[in-house]
């Protein structure tokens, strides 16, 4: 994965602004009229050439959503969202669906290249070396790129298929593997689960689908890259990952958006299903546009991510590095249904300027001897607010359940806030639950110590912050850990002093 460490360098040179991914692509788009109604949903479904059952499913979700109210229990403050003032479908004109790279609009490819994701190069590489070579090369990463509402390109589909792994846009999966999609879609996050999940279920446009069959270890990292480009549009992607008995897969998502004055809505749903003995590792490097120093613009990120350890001894591991978005509302969770199943949540959330993050996890222990680990590192700077909100629930049948939670907050400056809101509910007396929390500041003496040794103030902050986050960063796939470290340093640029 040679591209990723260079990603930031490449992109840094592209723009001069504080947010290095803020450019937009001028591209011919097909955009649905603003507003949300049954007609909008029918239009999306028709554009995607979906079967009748999925349209019905969407309409059910929409009916549920209309009965629901936007949740306001998070420690988040923002102007009301006008759901009728958003485009729910925006697609680059030439791409009616997934197709080979030659058909992709060159402007689009250029965008992804600017972002450090040279799809074409990788595809060529695969073509030249042949699929076997590609599979031996564990370093390679298959990428699904989602531009506004549609997936524009998925690489390495063929070599993955040889291993039996399905990796494709979910819209393609609906057409090609309808039974698989139908039996798993909504099985972890039902249509009416919550306000934003219901909205997503009604209008989701694209996202990734991964299926790893029994006993297969996915031969390469899978990655999806999300990009919001169109003005006043929302992105509602839906990702579904299924690992059958004994299967293993590691998946990474990355996201950016242009710098715009208005807020843009992102309401995704991710569902993971791990059957007996399966392992799913899901990593996120989230870098949506965070808004400017005064809090203008930026992405509203309301995301529902949930994995179910359905089979015994299965394991789901969430790792997230969250540096972007004006508002983050996100609680990647694990339902530990299978006996002996394991849930993990490793999180770094950075907020600067006027960013607000309310993020954490839910570990729902249902099976016996289930265990979970939560390590959350919150870093607040500027006038931002950073809240960890986590639930550990142990059901009556979860004999011997164990949880270990560590929540550490680091404050930079005098005007930011860090909050920790743990909820612990145990209905089984044999459960062992541990919770540790610390709050610290980057001390003046630490900065001076580093500077006396020759480090600039910003390098010193980067070093201290990366040290603070080490326990989480080491969980990322190695190639991405490098990117994440640089991203942390960049996000906090200028936040000290």
């Amino acid at each position, binding site marked *: 994965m040679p591209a990723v460490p260079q990603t930031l360098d490449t992109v840094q040179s592209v723009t001069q602004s504080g947010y290095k991914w803020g450019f937009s692509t001028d591209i011919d788009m097909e955009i649905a009229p603003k507003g949300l109604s049954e007609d909008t949903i029918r239009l999306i479904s028709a554009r995607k050439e979906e079967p009748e059952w999925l349209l019905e499913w969407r309409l059910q979700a929409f009916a549920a959503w209309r009965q629901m109210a936007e949740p306001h229990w998070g420690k988040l403050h923002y102007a009301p969202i006008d759901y009728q003032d958003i485009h729910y479908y925006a697609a680059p004109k030439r791409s009616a669906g997934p197709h080979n790279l030659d058909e992709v609009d060159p402007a689009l490819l250029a965008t992804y290249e600017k972002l450090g994701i040279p799809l074409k190069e990788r595809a060529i590489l695969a073509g030249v070396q042949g699929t076997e070579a590609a599979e031996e090369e564990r370093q390679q990463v298959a990428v699904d790129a989602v531009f506004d509402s549609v997936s524009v390109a998925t690489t390495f589909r063929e070599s993955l298929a040889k291993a039996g792994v399905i990796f494709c846009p979910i819209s393609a999966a609906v057409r090609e593997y309808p039974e698989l999609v139908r039996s798993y879609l909504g099985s972890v996050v039902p249509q009416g689960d919550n306000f934003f999940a219901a909205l997503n279920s009604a209008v989701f446009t694209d996202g990734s689908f991964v299926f790893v069959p029994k006993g297969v270890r996915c031969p390469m990292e899978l990655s999806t890259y999300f990009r919001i480009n169109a003005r006043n549009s929302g992105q509602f992607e839906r990702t579904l990952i299924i690992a059958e008995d004994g299967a293993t897969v590691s998946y990474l998502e990355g996201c950016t958006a242009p710098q715009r004055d208005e807020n843009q809505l992102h309401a995704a749903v991710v569902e993971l299903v791990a059957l007996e003995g399966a392992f799913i590792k899901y990593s996120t490097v989230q870098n949506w546009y965070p808004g400017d120093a005064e809090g203008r613009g930026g992405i509203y990120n309301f995301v529902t991510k949930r994995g179910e350890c359905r089979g015994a001894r299965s394991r789901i591991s969430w790792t997230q590095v969250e540096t972007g978005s004006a508002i983050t509302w996100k609680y990647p969770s694990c339902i530990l249904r299978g006996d002996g199943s394991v849930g993990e949540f490793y999180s770094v959330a950075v907020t600067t300027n006027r960013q607000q993050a309310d993020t954490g996890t839910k570990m729902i222990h249902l099976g016996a001897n289930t265990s979970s680990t939560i390590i959350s590192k919150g870093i607040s700077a500027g006038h931002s607010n950073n809240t960890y909100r986590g639930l550990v629930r142990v059901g009556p049948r979860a004999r011997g359940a164990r949880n270990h939670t560590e929540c550490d907050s680091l404050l930079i400056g005098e005007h930011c806030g860090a909050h920790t809101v743990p909820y612990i509910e145990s209905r089984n007396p044999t459960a062992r639950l541990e919770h540790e929390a610390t709050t610290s500041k980057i*001390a*003046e*003496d*630490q900065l*001076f*110590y*580093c*500077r*006396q*040794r*020759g*480090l*600039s*103030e910003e*390098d010193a902050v980067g*070093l*201290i912050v*990366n*040290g*603070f*986050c*080490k*326990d989480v960063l080491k969980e990322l796939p190695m190639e991405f850990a490098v990117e994440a470290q640089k991203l942390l340093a960049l996000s906090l640029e200028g936040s000290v002093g």
Partner: protein
Amino acid sequence: MLVIDDLRARVEGKDILNGVDLVVPTGEVHALMGPNGSGKSTLSYVLSGREGYEVTGGTATFDGVDLLSIPPEERAAAGLFLAFQYPVELPGVGNANFLRTALNAVRRQRGEPELDAVRFLKLARAATKRLSMSDEMLKRNVNVGFSGGEKKRNEVLQMGILQPKLAILDETDSGLDIDALKIVSEGVNALRGPDFSALVITHYQRLLDYIVPDRVHVLVRGRIVRSGGPELARELETTGYAAAEAEAA
């Protein structure tokens, strides 16, 4: 050559340095002694550029560079190293990573090529060996969980790797047992040479048995009140600072 001329400084509104005059020629090691609260640590912080130490008058130059006008990291690049009295812990930051980052930051500022991990490790291992320290020291997090003695030794290790032109040791001997004291002294003595100078701040004469200074200065109430050869330190050991203080009053 370090030249301090009539240096005055204030901390939290209180005058601490009241006109320090001091010259440390290149290649010499000078000791700075004095009672508690006389301004020894303040002088080291003012020279290295710590925030909150307000310079109210005078100058300090090193090899012609006006130290007081540049940020701490540029002073470090100019060759100034401060061994802290209370070394700071950096959780999660590996010692080797910290040192390489520091060394490369300094090299970059000087326009020298950066060292890759392999070459750095070779250099660092050589330094630990020279100082009779274990490589283990490089793998641990910066000063986290270190004993007082280990922290001081880590300062000397950093000094050995960064190879400064001017080292200020702020009571590096305090809290050290005799073995640690010897290691620390050897670390300083190993650097002695025609291009290296040091200002050794200490409360006790004991350290000066191992690091024999070219000159000894006594700081009382923010002023140098006496200067002399190594024998001055021994004299103070018997008479104490009372006489010097009386002289200053």
